[in-house]
């Protein structure tokens, strides 16, 4: 098929490894996503908090600076689990907004343009397609959650000394695990809604609405039946329960004791939500819908 030959020619060169092909999707998606200056500005804004946190950590170990500003940051904002929990709380909030912006069109565009047969007629499975679409979000959310969180942890360890690193390694684990719990939930919810709701605005609203409606259902069940199990429908409580347990800060939300979930129940609820999303995705992500 060479231009100069004007004839059809098969390809005989090397192929990329199969495991890496899902990464083609985010690479091409970012070209589209970062074309928007508004989104690029928002994404840059997501790094303000890590920067402020890094400055705080630096000031903690700079007595001269503290003397100049006449404040003692050691008492005001100690570097501990709560410090990192606040950081993750802010960053996951931003991750949610980021998901609302770029998540809805991920699959809906392909469905409305009938592009799935093109993807799936290649050596590219449905699972790789979904992972590829999810990784558009997973990579970006990672870049604003556990990656800067890990760097802050290493920065603090460097300034504080090796003892702090070993004594507080659980904080790094908490940052990583909590970030991935949020990443998994947001990415799965987002691609599932994108697969079922074609209209972008409706999909964004559905993502917001899901948290609000689940919250309302959970609270209603809890209050009417005087039980804690309604919280299993409440995604916010589920995620906060997981976060609190990871950062060793039980019931930081201040819920009434009879509404507090156990961490195990929260993890199970999260897994079930993820499983339900996967079930919905398998129903929708197909080359062609079969009319039986």
């Amino acid at each position, binding site marked *: *098929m*060479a*231009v100069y030959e*004007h*004839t*059809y*020619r*098969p*390809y*005989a*060169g*090397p*192929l*990329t*490894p*199969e495991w890496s*092909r899902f990464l*083609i999707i985010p690479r*091409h998606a970012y070209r*589209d996503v970062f074309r928007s200056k508004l989104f690029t500005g928002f994404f840059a804004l997501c790094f303000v908090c890590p920067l402020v946190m890094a400055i705080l950590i630096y000031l903690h170990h700079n007595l001269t600076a503290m003397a100049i500003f006449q404040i003692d940051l050691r008492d005001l904002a100690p570097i501990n689990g709560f410090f990192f929990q606040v950081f993750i709380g802010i960053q996951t909030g931003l991750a949610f907004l980021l998901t609302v912006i770029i998540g809805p*069109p991920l699959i809906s*565009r*392909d469905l*409305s*343009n*009938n*592009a799935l*047969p*093109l*993807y*799936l*007629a*290649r*050596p*590219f*499975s449905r699972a790789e397609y979904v992972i590829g679409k999810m990784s558009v979000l997973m990579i970006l959310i990672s870049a604003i959650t556990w990656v800067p969180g890990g760097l802050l942890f290493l920065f603090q360890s460097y300034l504080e000394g090796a003892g702090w690193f070993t004594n507080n390694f659980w904080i790094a684990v908490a940052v990583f695990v909590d970030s991935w719990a949020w990443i998994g939930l947001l990415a799965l919810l987002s691609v599932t809604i994108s697969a079922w709701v074609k209209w972008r605005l409706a999909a964004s609203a559905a993502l917001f609405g899901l948290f609000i409606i689940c919250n309302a259902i959970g609270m209603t069940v809890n209050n009417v039946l005087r039980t804690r199990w309604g919280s299993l429908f409440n995604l916010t409580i589920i995620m906060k329960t997981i976060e609190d347990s990871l950062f060793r800060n039980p019931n930081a939300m201040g819920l009434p004791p009879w509404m507090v979930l156990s961490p195990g129940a929260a993890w199970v609820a999260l897994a079930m939500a993820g499983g339900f999303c996967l079930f919905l995705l398998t129903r929708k992500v*197909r*080359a*062609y819908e*079969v*009319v*039986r």
Partner: protein
Amino acid sequence: MENPLIKVAESEASVAVLPKAPELVPEQPVIDLDGLSVTFGSRPILKDLRGELRGRAIGLLGPNGAGKTTLIHTLLGFHSPSSGTAHIFGRDIRNEAKNIRTFIGYMPERDSFIANMTCVHFVRLMAELSGLPSEAALERAHEALFYLGLGEARYRQLGTYSLGMKQLAKLAQAIAHGPRLIFLDEPTNGLDPPARARMIELIRQIRDSGKAHILLSSHLLRDVEECCEEILIIKHGRIAVYCNLEEERKSNRKFLELETRGDRDGFADAIAKLGCEYALTSERRLKLVLQDGVEIRDLYRIAAEHEVQIRRLNFKRDSLEDIFLKAMEDGNGGL
């Protein structure tokens, strides 16, 4: 002394794998249907398809709902066979579907695109998904678009393309990765006559290159007749006819229809003495089957001897339309 180029090649080889292109064994069928059946719910769509398709270009024909597109989708692995299987270049579609798709190109019937993309970006993405490294995919995307005549329009958004250009873009994504087998589902749908002629010409070029096999599904008998050497006609989910068009024509080539004036009976007797079967169809017409060794000039010679005028002489050839209509009348589902 160590060759640096070899070193670079070796290091590249560590991050890439060589394609497992199928060996083109001459005796091996392109598609081997082995009792393939497909059922949607309780509705059988394809029923026990059997046969070995070996042609360079195979036309897939059948009325609406016969199962043509389902057959293509099943071969691509979109639907699972309910029983039986099929092999493409010797590989089973049941357990090697992903591997098979490495060397297949697919041009779907309906519009299929990715939004907000230029054509070259779209074709490049599709080639990358087929396993080509990024640079090679870009190079081949440009080549494919120039080859198909979209070179000047390759940086335009796909949404701005005309229908004919969109069809060509779909063909470009189907061939960019250099497949060995190309499935074309209604490639001339909605095209005006010049665009259709261009599409047919391109399909013939690919066929004649000898580098790829083509399975062409179409409602338009003329398209199939112009591009394909073999045809597979499906009716009610079964194979009604599978034949080589040229051989089918050759087998019917010796049927003749004559219109004569003069001593027809004497002329007919003389023809019979040559060993040709004949039938008198009307007062002036007769049909005959030419035997081997008997030429048309022999007929003219005998006619002259019997003072018979041959006013009209027609070869009775089965057109694809005849074959298709015959299959629709009495196709019994076997090869």
